[in-house]
């Protein structure tokens, strides 16, 4: 975890409502693990006391980049930063995705900026699998080519059917999971091996809470491991203020876990969803 005065290397419309912001970050860049985020002091937004968290899309010694969507005053102000302008960062923050278990087949599920948050994971996982991407419309489905170029099979669902199948990404996932389960069952002779193949699936998800919960529920129902990257309002970003908590199951009940420090990635098993 470092605080770094980075500077804008590239800033442009990426796709749909998303912009790509690439920052020089010689200190932070090389440290980033998949699923971690940076806490950004938005330049020129002087009346704002809080930073804004963004998942790291790509990172190496040449810099780190984020993909962001304008949703409020902070992200709106961010759109005005220019090449060369300084941007103060804290990062890398949080506990990101673990690598897939030995012999596991990774499955990615993403919506919105989740695609960006999963890119490093996709790039660094030793085994490639299937990636499910959802979005309201085709413009919301980011980085398909890049995931394909990494060797992932990408399956897309959009609410309006403008790209891929029409409907929620979880419907696409359901269908595929059912295929896997039954496909394996119908192929194999006994039960043991097929089950093992299906059980080798390991899910990594990032996106809206409702999607994460749906993915988590499916995984738990089918006995699969799922890692969910949770999006929670944050203040400090480093575990000090206890703003970003979610309920984590314990033996006796639950305890607060901080998305910024203990997460944002949690095992679906751990999460006690609130309604």
């Amino acid at each position, binding site marked *: *975890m*470092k*605080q770094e005065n980075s500077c804008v290397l590239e800033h442009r419309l990426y796709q749909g409502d998303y912009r790509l912001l690439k920052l020089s970050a010689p200190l932070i860049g090389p440290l980033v693990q998949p699923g971690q985020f940076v806490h950004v*002091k938005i330049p020129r937004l002087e*009346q*704002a*006391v*809080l*930073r804004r968290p963004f998942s790291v899309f790509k990172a190496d010694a040449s810099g780190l980049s984020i993909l962001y969507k304008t949703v409020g005053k902070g992200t709106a102000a961010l759109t005005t930063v220019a090449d060369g302008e300084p941007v*103060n960062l*804290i990062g890398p923050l949080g506990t990101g995705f673990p690598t897939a278990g030995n012999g596991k087949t990774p499955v990615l599920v993403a919506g919105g900026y989740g695609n960006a948050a999963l890119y490093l994971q996709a790039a660094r996982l030793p085994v490639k699998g299937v990636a499910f991407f959802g979005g309201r419309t085709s413009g919301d489905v980011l980085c398909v080519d890049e995931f394909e170029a990494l060797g992932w099979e990408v399956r897309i669902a959009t609410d309006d059917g403008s790209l891929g199948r029409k409907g929620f990404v979880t419907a696409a996932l359901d269908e595929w999971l059912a295929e896997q389960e039954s496909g394996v069952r119908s192929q194999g002779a006994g039960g043991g091996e097929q089950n093992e193949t299906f059980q080798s699936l390991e899910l990594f998800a990032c996106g809206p809470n409702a999607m994460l919960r749906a993915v988590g529920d499916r995984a738990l129902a089918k006995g699969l491991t799922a890692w969910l990257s949770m999006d*929670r*309002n944050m*203040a*400090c*970003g*480093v*575990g*000090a*203020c*206890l*703003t*970003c*908590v*979610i309920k984590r199951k314990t033996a006796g009940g639950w305890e*607060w876990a901080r998305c910024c*420090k203990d997460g944002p990635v949690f095992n679906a098993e751990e999460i006690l969803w*609130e309604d």
Partner: protein
Amino acid sequence: MNKPDLKVRIGSLEMKNPVTVASGTFGYGPEYAGLVDLDRLGAITVKGICTEPHVGNATPRTFETAGGMLNAIGLPGPGAQGFIKKYLPFYEKYSVPLIVNIWGKTVEDYSRVAEIFNDQARIGALEVNVSCPNVKEGGALYGTDVNLFRTVVDAVRVRTQKPLIVKLAPNVADIKVFARAAQECGAEAVSIMNSYPAMAIDIETRRPQLANRTGGLSGPAIKPIAVKLVWEAARAITIPIIGMGGIYTPEDALEFIIAGASAVAVGTASFTDPSSAVRVIEGVEAWMAAKGIGSIAELRGTVQA
């Protein structure tokens, strides 16, 4: 240019410079240790702790406002024993003085937690939070009803030999009444101010932006309120004041000291920029050196008003 003397004393607590962090904005210490050299600070003040573990409020717990933020964290924490086990050992490798912020749901709670911490040598002082706007139980009233206020401070005082800092509520008609009461009850210092009771509503959902409905306003927005309260209190009492409320820069800290504070705390600013407290220390020292001001005492309360 001689190095100015930045030392400040709060009873037996010696701070090598007048800058601590505000309770609740700096966790228990370890959280910022990767970004801030803790031993540079005059003291660390940790998040409010009560006798037993406490879960605090539901989320959302914070909300950004113009020049500030609301929080209604609700004092979740590991309880006194939890703190001792989980966090005190961390301080063995640091020399920075430690101030523990304590609170309770009842007067009995306050005195128990004070008693538990009284034995812990690593704890340099207790800050008594009688002014948390975010817990329903007593908290708010202890800070605004001077009789209850005295009861709490008295109760804590008899259970601890450690320096006692009483953290005053800002939402009172006359801060002097509470500052004097704290002094009379034997407190070594008061801290001013806690966040200000406040609220924000989402007009689309018609629900408060905080799960707790109301919260405390902190940050630059409240600085002029805090400076006024410090100035008023400073003319009413002789014990030191730790000033806080929107301190971001060395100039902000100096403003509080000139108003009458002996020390200051950096709060919300750490969220905006974790290096704030250290920047404030360095800036105060540099400013004093440049002006040839030898010590904090020379500066304190020198406002021409």
